[in-house]
């Protein structure tokens, strides 16, 4: 393609819009651009390499070097692979923002796709397929189709990935590719097979991925060892979706896979376990055998993992998951493997503590209590708190052994405040379930080092519940009256004071009175709390005995949330998925692709806005003067957010038309500015019409036609009977057009973009009208 820029640009001084890109780095990027330009003619590859490398370095730092795109396109005609690799990386990164210019690069890619060296063929194809803009597809598909049957597996496997890339750009181009991909599963090369599986899973995602027949399963299992670790993990993951026809088939597969449990790669071991679990989920006895069988490999991975702490964490999460499904006994023997080590990061220690809490049982509890007791004094507060919680959880789960735990927890009271705080909360839960432990808790309850909000609430609850057994209860409660605390705490305080009042009226009467007074006479008090206090107050005035009866006729709680150590929701978590790590169902952390597309677009918009805001703050845009201001539509340089009310108005009157007189005459912008606006603006309007007249469908005629309607050409090029032109104009705001006449298909394509979306639509209409008038389209 031969692009040329409208010749008028050079003679006219650039407008001030280029200030949009005035930044600290503009100078640097410009310098770099010149440097690249100058080095292009050099013969010394070493020098060139250094310059290209510099560009990539800038790119990595997140500096926008898309301006150098034309120069980099030129540089891509090199035979030096070192440069070529870097340049291709650059081109694929910025192609999206430089669609028009990216066409220049395509020919190089195409040429390399036919190179005699398969390494280069594959490499070029991979990069060609990574050019992310719709126009590239036409060039892509022939190359992909050809490469799918290349003699070299490296090229074939790359071509398959190319299909997936096309699928995300324009899936309609991939008609009937599935059949071919299924065929490629019988390829000789393992990587080709794996990529075909990945591709099928993405392309057929809506139907639940690749279809698995018994034949296919047998075939893949037979070749399993030819694949690398990731390939095996992928196949095993596929296999976990398969349902064997009968027990015989099931056991055959399981026996075949059993030795894979000895693998040091955790991805494979977990994938095998998932297959086993899914196969046997409806056969509880076999399932339990499976769990017992996989214990040792899991524990091994959790203790070694080649020093890979991150993997260790993942395995521990899965062990916790299995234990929490009711198989905690399986790991009880190995409790010492879950002791915390001095050099482990906090995230490992925390998950180990959770596992210890789950697998504690009569025979290991003695050792474990000592161990957990040590962690309570750990320097890391998080560990300390977690170990107290773990002790509490064990006490709740094993009520027969709770006594020892309560005694141990009580012994921590002389230690730090945060320890006391945590212990109180744990005591609250234990006492709710089993009030008999109150005598062992007395000392800590009456200590005065409770500082945390939640711990205070827990303490107040305990004081209320066991007011008759705690001598100091009324006086401790008294200290909370009138103190600035949360509403939640005051609600609890009110309840607890009443409870104590009913058993120790003489001591409490005055204190309760104080409480009522402090709540009801506080103007700013929470209205619900006030209501409640007033209600109790009046009720007590009327008939205290009746209230007492009512109050003490409490509901008996016999089911505790903590007792259900099997997490119902967790039963549905998919093994070997992130659900197990986060302990959340998949719909809580996975969103569809559109969600992220919106995020990406928003990110782009914010960027533009930021740039615009910074410029408007400095200088008003001179273009504004060219507009008539009778319309209430704000001009382009004002941030988009402020325009929103106006946008609504426009959309309410869609019949509004743009008139030629309102377009700025001889409006001029720079090529770079056009490029950046074109790429940064959101998609506006787009139409495709049938070409009606061939005689004026050429570059010159079109430029003249558009000029007449005050739209100006900035770049144009023609190749393979496709004429592509770019126009722009300024009305209330700037509008940009991509105009394409495709003589092969006999179509006219018009893409319009504008800073105000409605304007893109209006401008589109405007062009369509004059194209119709000139009979170019019907």
């Amino acid at each position, binding site marked *: 393609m031969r692009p040329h820029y409208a010749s008028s640009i050079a003679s006219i001084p650039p407008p001030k819009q280029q200030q949009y890109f005035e930044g600290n780095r503009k100078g640097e990027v410009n310098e770099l651009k010149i440097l690249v330009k100058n080095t292009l003619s050099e013969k010394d590859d070493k020098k060139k390499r250094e310059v290209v490398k510099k560009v990539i370095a800038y790119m990595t730092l997140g500096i926008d070097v898309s301006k150098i795109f034309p120069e980099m396109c030129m540089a891509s005609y090199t035979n030096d692979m070192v440069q070529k690799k870097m340049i291709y990386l650059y081109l694929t990164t910025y192609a999206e923002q430089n669609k028009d210019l990216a066409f220049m690069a395509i020919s190089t890619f195409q040429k390399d796709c036919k190179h005699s060296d398969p390494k280069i063929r594959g490499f070029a194809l991979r990069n060609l397929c990574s050019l992310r803009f719709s126009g590239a597809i036409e060039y892509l598909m022939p190359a992909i189709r050809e490469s799918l049957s290349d003699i070299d597996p490296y090229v074939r496997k790359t071509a398959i990935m190319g299909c997936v890339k096309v699928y995300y750009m324009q899936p309609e181009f991939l008609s009937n590719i599935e059949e071919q991909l299924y065929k490629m599963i019988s390829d000789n090369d393992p990587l080709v097979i794996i990529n075909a599986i990945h591709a099928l899973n993405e392309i057929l995602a809506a139907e639940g991925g690749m279809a698995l027949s018994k034949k296919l399963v047998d075939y893949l299992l037979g070749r399993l060892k030819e694949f690398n670790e990731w390939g095996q993990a992928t196949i095993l993951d596929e296999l976990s979706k398969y349902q064997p026809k009968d027990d015989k088939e099931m056991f055959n597969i399981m026996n075949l896979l059993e030795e894979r449990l000895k693998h040091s790669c955790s991805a494979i071991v*977990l994938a095998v376990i998932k297959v086993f679990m899914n196969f046997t989920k409806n056969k509880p006895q076999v399932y339990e055998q499976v769990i017992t069988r996989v214990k040792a490999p899991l524990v091994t991975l959790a203790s070694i993992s080649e020093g890979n702490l991150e993997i260790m964490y993942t395995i521990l999460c899965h062990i916790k998951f299995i234990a929490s499904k009711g198989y905690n006994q399986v790991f009880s023997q190995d409790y010492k493997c879950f002791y915390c080590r001095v050099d482990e990061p906090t995230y490992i220690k925390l998950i180990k503590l959770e596992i210890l809490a789950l697998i504690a049982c009569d025979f290991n509890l003695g050792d474990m209590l000592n161990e957990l007791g040590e962690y309570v004094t750990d320097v890391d507060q998080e560990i300390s708190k977690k170990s107290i919680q773990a002790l509490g959880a064990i006490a709740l789960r094993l009520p027969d052994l709770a006594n020892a735990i309560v005694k141990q927890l009580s012994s921590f009271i002389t230690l730090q405040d945060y320890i006391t705080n945590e212990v109180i909360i744990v005591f609250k839960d234990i006492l709710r379930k089993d009030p008999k432990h109150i005598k062992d808790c007395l000392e800590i309850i009456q200590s005065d080092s409770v500082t945390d909000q939640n711990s205070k609430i827990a303490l107040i609850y305990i004081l209320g519940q066991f007011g008759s057994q705690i001598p100091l209860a009324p006086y401790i409660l008294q200290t909370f009256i009138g103190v600035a605390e949360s509403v939640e705490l005051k609600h609890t305080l009110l309840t607890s004071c009443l409870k104590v009042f009913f058993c120790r009226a003489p001591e409490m009467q005055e204190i309760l009175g104080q409480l009522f007074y402090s709540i009801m006479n506080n103007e700013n008090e929470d209205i619900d709390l006030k209501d409640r206090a007033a209600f109790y107050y009046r009720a007590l005035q009327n008939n205290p005995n009746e209230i007492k009866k009512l109050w003490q006729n409490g509901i008996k709680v016999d089911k505790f949330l903590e007792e259900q150590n099997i997490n119902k929701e967790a039963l549905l978590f998919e093994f070997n998925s992130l659900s197990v790590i986060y302990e959340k169902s998949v719909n809580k952390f996975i969103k569809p692709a559109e969600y992220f597309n919106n995020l990406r677009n928003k990110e782009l918009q914010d960027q533009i806005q930021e740039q615009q805001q910074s410029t408007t703050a400095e200088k008003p845009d001179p273009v504004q003067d060219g507009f008539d201001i009778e319309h209430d539509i704000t001009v382009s340089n004002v941030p988009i957010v402020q325009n929103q009310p106006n946008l609504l108005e426009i959309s309410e009157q869609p019949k509004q038309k743009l008139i030629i007189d309102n377009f700025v005459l001889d409006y001029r912008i720079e090529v770079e500015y056009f490029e950046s606006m074109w790429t940064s603006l959101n998609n506006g309007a787009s139409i495709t019409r049938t070409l009606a007249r061939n005689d004026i469908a050429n570059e010159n005629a079109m430029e003249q036609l558009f000029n007449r309607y005050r739209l100006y050409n900035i770049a144009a090029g023609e190749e393979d009977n496709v004429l592509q032109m770019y126009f722009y104009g300024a009305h209330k705001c700037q509008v940009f057009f991509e105009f394409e006449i495709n003589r092969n298909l006999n179509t006219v394509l018009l893409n319009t973009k504008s800073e105000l979306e409605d304007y893109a639509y209006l401008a589109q209409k405007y062009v369509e009208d004059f194209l119709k008038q000139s009979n170019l389209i019907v």
Partner: protein
Amino acid sequence: MFSQIFILSPRGDTIINRDFRSDLPKSTPETFFRQAKTYSGDANPLFNVDCIQFAHIKRGGLYIVGTSRFNLQPAMSLELLDRLAKEIKDFCGVINEEVLRKNFILIYEILDESFDFGYPQLMATEQIKPLIVNEPIQPQPDSVMNSLRPKIQTFNIFVPNTMGSQAVQRSVLNKNQANEIFVDIYEKLNVLFNSSAYVINQSIEGCIQMTSFLQGNPPLKLALNEDLQIGRQQGQYSAGVILDDCNFHECVNANELDMNKTLRIQPPDGQFVVMNYRISGDYAAPFRLFPIIEEISSSKIEVTIKLKACFDAKIIASYANVRIPIPKQTANAYPELVKNAQQETAEYDSNKKIIEWQIKKLCGGQERSLKIKLTLQATQTAHTARKEIGPIAMNFEIPMFNVSRLQIKYLRIEERGNTTNPHRWVRYITQSSSYVCRI
């Protein structure tokens, strides 16, 4: 699979940033770093922010991060990042910020071959080697030393600090590479003593690691002890080496292990772990610690620690560091070494309230001791403060020594072809994993 892979410096600067799928926001590196910093310690390896999944590993202080919008296989994603880190190590020799910054183009190349559209492709070092066109750039020699040997030994994992290991810190791309293979048996000891020097918990985590520079990747045969036994039966006593459990690398065929204690290996290039094992049985701890705490007065405490090396006199520990946490309320602390102490230092870090006692060389059978005089602030008495002393943690490395007695009887190169007999280097290294004495 992965949408993007990026590598960040410890300060959050982007060193490498590769977007494979363009389906997530571009600001993910900042999002990641911000979230990672919210953790009090190291960040969880897997977390999500706004439904973007982040998987990361930390190597040489660097964050190697993969992002995705899919429900990843957690283990696989982390293994992939780990594999990537190993590839980088194989090609660059070492992995640290300076090396990565110097070789970022090479790393882009590796990334490009390793992943396509976020899916793992060629990930074995020898498969990628012929596709790589860039040469590794070696960092300044003195800076390598700096980065490898921090003044205070951190609790490294399987990173030996002995001189010999420098040999394997080089790139597989080195053209003048000798035809040789390094075999290391690492054992990491986990020992927990209670206050009366009684062992509460002990275990060994070991591995056989190879770094292969063999030309043509010939098959190997590795023979282990004849009295080796895998799997421990309850109440069974055996004089042999008993491993509780073990696992093997993809390239290992362990079918003959039970019969004649040999492993068949088809070695890849670069570094890989042949076999991992764990042992939970009793063994003689190589170091013993004897702490004595005396309350001199209500505000003064004296801590005496004796360290004994309980191994053969011919063996020398290359370093042994002892770290003693002391009470938060300490006003001052004076660690005192024995007179004429050589190659020994003891320092008080008043910020962390830790005494670091470092011993450079320690021969088997020797004994060392350290006395620490503590003065407390007025707010705490010696009686309550003494509870805050400890636990004492040890960090050491003993070359040419292993506790499990697992041995390599021979390493045979099966199809040598015409090349000269390659060098085979076998080392044994014992390190501390968690070597702790409670008080």
